[in-house]
């Protein structure tokens, strides 16, 4: 029997956020909605590791069963007081046009108009798949921040504010829990899509993260120190400098050439190329066949393209999107500068959802006169239907489903190109339900896919990723999920989503048990290319 301790705990009032109890919320595995068979047996489910006593004693951890930020507890009352003051300074700055012109209007409107009707709740996969634990309701953290806003920022009488908006304790307990709670939402914005008024709880979470990062210098190290800071300093959040990336790509090219019998040679810093292709650099390390397949496909299609070896420009990652506008702007600025320097006609964003959003739409209003950006989905569609490649769909004759990255579909409306490709090259393509702009997040959004400190991975496997696991299993429910003989492919054209889906399939043993594999879109295209003599997809290596 896999269990994780005592009965479920769920707050019963908003004010409990400031109540000094050891743990505000606790989720029992027994109370989570079951996955479809054969993954529905609790006794066979992986466990949920408890936080160690040392971790509990060292870091702020009074919210729930896990830790995302790892902020050491303040050592003295003075330190605690300073943190509280810094938070409220940040909260005030968040509502000034100088500091937050980027999101002032959407934030203010979302703060002031929520009807607390909970129409958003059932659209949140985290809330639903946590067994509806109150602390994960999309409006819960928004409501806590809203009360702090009306109490400390919004002008008006204290009494009226209490009457209209309710009260909240302005103590470190509330704030430290808010800090952790800011990292229990994947920013998928499905809740915002269902709000009849237009309130965006995902945005509120995003803005909350900004207070901690931009004012207090507090963010998960995977996103900040090892993420954007490392990317700006070394060149990539993976830690690869320009020499390392070139070495890696050389190796990938050689491997691709060996595997396919076709000479693959990636291009570097080609001035005046049609396309500057920017991949999420995680691909080079975790899924090298993806950039390799792009190189092969682009050359076969006769497209003029290049990679850049300039710092930052060979990594499309931009974690600033998730927590910090300054870091977002810095990374995007480097991407755009290099494109101008190379005089390319356009940037193509590789299979990475948040790169799409950061560079494709957000950067649009941070800088003027930028090089246009286009999605790899669009480019792949254009290539597949151009007739420049000879494709044999029979090579992909196995069950394929498509995961829609939130940032590509819901945030950008790029829905059909990837589907048209799959319909053309994968005879057994089937949709997940729901899909397109109503998709569910993989559970690794907003940086979670790279966050695994303490037992955070257990949380994102059991809770934030649970809905996606359910969807994947349901998409293949016409096959025998008790057997791994029929190989099934989850196409996830996004690096972070792939990371999360990889972890989910590993966690639940779905590869061994049910033959479920995952990968990107370009791999399926190359797998269908008749000039590639051997099947490109190597199930044993996946």
């Amino acid at each position, binding site marked *: 029997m896999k269990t994780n301790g005592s009965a479920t705990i769920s707050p*019963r009032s*908003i004010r409990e956020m400031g109540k000094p109890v050891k743990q505000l919320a606790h989720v029992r595995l027994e109370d989570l909605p079951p996955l479809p068979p054969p993954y529905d047996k609790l006794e066979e489910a992986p466990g949920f590791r408890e936080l160690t006593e040392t971790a509990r004693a060292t870091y702020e951890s009074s919210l729930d069963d896990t830790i995302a930020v790892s902020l050491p507890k303040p050592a003295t009352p003075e330190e605690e007081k300073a943190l509280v003051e810094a938070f409220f300074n940040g909260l005030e*700055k968040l509502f000034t*046009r100088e*500091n937050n*012109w980027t*999101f*002032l*209007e*959407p934030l*203010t*409107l979302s703060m002031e*108009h*929520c009807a*607390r*009707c*909970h*129409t*958003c709740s*059932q659209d949140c996969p985290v809330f639903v798949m946590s067994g509806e634990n*109150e602390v994960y*309701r999309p*409006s819960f953290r928004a*409501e806590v921040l809203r009360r702090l806003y009306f109490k400390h920022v919004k002008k008006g009488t204290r009494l009226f504010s209490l*009457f*209209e908006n*309710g009260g909240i304790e302005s103590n470190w307990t509330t704030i430290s829990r808010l800090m952790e709670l800011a990292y229990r939402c994947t920013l998928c*914005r499905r809740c*915002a*899509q269902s*709000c*009849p*008024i*237009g309130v*965006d709880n995902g945005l509120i979470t995003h803005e909350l993260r900004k207070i901690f*990062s*931009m*004012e207090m210098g507090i963010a998960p190290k995977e996103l900040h120190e090892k993420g954007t*800071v490392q990317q700006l300093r070394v060149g990539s959040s993976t830690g690869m400098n320009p020499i390392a990336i070139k070495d890696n790509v050389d190796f990938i090219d050689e491997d691709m050439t060996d595997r396919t019998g076709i000479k693959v040679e990636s291009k570097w810093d080609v001035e005046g190329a049609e396309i500057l292709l920017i991949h999420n650099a995680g691909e080079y390390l975790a899924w090298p066949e993806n950039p390799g397949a792009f190189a092969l496909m682009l050359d076969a299609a006769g497209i003029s393209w290049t990679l850049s070896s300039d710092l930052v420009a060979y990594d499309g990652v931009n974690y600033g999107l998730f927590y910090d506008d*300054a870091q977002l*702007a*810095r990374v995007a*600025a480097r991407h755009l500068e290099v494109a101008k320097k190379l005089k390319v006609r356009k940037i193509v964003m590789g299979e990475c959802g948040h790169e799409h959003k950061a560079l*494709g*739409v957000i950067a*649009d*209003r*941070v800088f*003027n*006169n930028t090089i246009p950006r*286009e999605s790899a989905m*669009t*480019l792949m*569609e254009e290539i597949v239907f151009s007739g420049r490649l000879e494709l044999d769909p029979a090579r992909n004759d196995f069950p394929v489903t498509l995961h829609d990255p939130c940032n590509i579909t*819901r*945030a*950008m*409306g*790029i829905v059909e190109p990837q589907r048209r490709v799959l319909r053309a090259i994968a005879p057994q393509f089937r949709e997940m339900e729901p899909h397109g*702009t109503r998709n569910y997040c993989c559970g690794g959004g907003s940086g979670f896919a790279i966050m695994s400190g303490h037992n955070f991975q257990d949380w994102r496997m059991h809770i934030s990723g649970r809905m996606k696991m359910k969807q994947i299993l349901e998409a293949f429910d016409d096959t025998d999920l008790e057997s791994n003989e029929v190989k099934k492919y989850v196409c996830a054209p996004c690096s972070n989503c792939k990371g999360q889906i990889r972890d989910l399939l590993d966690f639940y043993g779905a590869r061994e048990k049910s033959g479920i594999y995952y990968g990107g879109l370009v791999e399926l295209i190359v797998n269908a290319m008749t000039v590639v003599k051997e099947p490109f997809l190597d199930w044993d290596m996946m």
Partner: protein
Amino acid sequence: MLTAWHVLTYLGAALFLIGGVVRIVRVVRMPLHLRWELYPVPHEKGKAHYGGSVLEESNWWLTKREVDHWGELKVMLEEILILKGVWEHNRPLWYASFPLHFGLYLLIGNLVLLIAGAIFVLNGVQVGVGNSGLILSFLLLVVTIVGAAGGVLGLFGALYLLQKRIFDPALRMYANPGTYFNLALLAAIFASALTLFATDLNAPQRLVSLHTGLLTGGNLPFLTAAMQWHLGFCLFFAAYLPLTHMSHLFTKYFLYHDIRWEDTPNTPGGKLEGRILAQVNQKVSWSAPHINGQGSRSWVDVATSTGVEEKV
């Protein structure tokens, strides 16, 4: 002769308008924000039905942007009139929220009819006399039906919502004293409207006279107790609404058009360039070590530095 009702009405209307204008001006004057649209965006011609956008097109920046205003209008009307979002995502609440909202729309519609009636009267039209008089008679009949229907629907909705807010633990947890007060106030408005029509056969005519008197500053008819209560509740609600979240009446337009559906690209020489330039030159004061704004560095300064050198 001006009475206390005249003064209260003008005050209530003025506070409603001022509150609304302040809310709207405040939003309009806010800086251009980063793109944060959510798809489906209904003005995406030919693509809105599946949530697609122009960004699906190869070289989309060379494509002429086609905006489907009818598509937007259709979605807005569905959202406002039948609360489609609540219907689709929170059906149990819709059965309470829709009657409340629709009851309110009917009472607002009735106000328009009563003002129209007052204009008839001011132009010398008498009930039942001549063609215009027949129209006025019909209008009074409609006022009765719409007013009573609004009262019934709205009262049902307000009481049902109140019941939900009290007995549903999830809703109760987020409710504030103001939540109950607002619903009770709305219930009082609807109940008094219903009482007004149910207890006084001359209510429509009396209401037209009331509006004539209020519009001109002239004499008011005898006001029944129900009428006085109804007027009082409505005036208080009008003055109070802009102070609450119910001011989404004024701002919902912006939440949809300025944010959820706002997808204007920043093209070279386009209308956004100047606004963006002004904003990125503002000084920031974020204090985290990697920004260290201190009110002396602009957004451009921050974005063109690596953040490493800012650490102190």
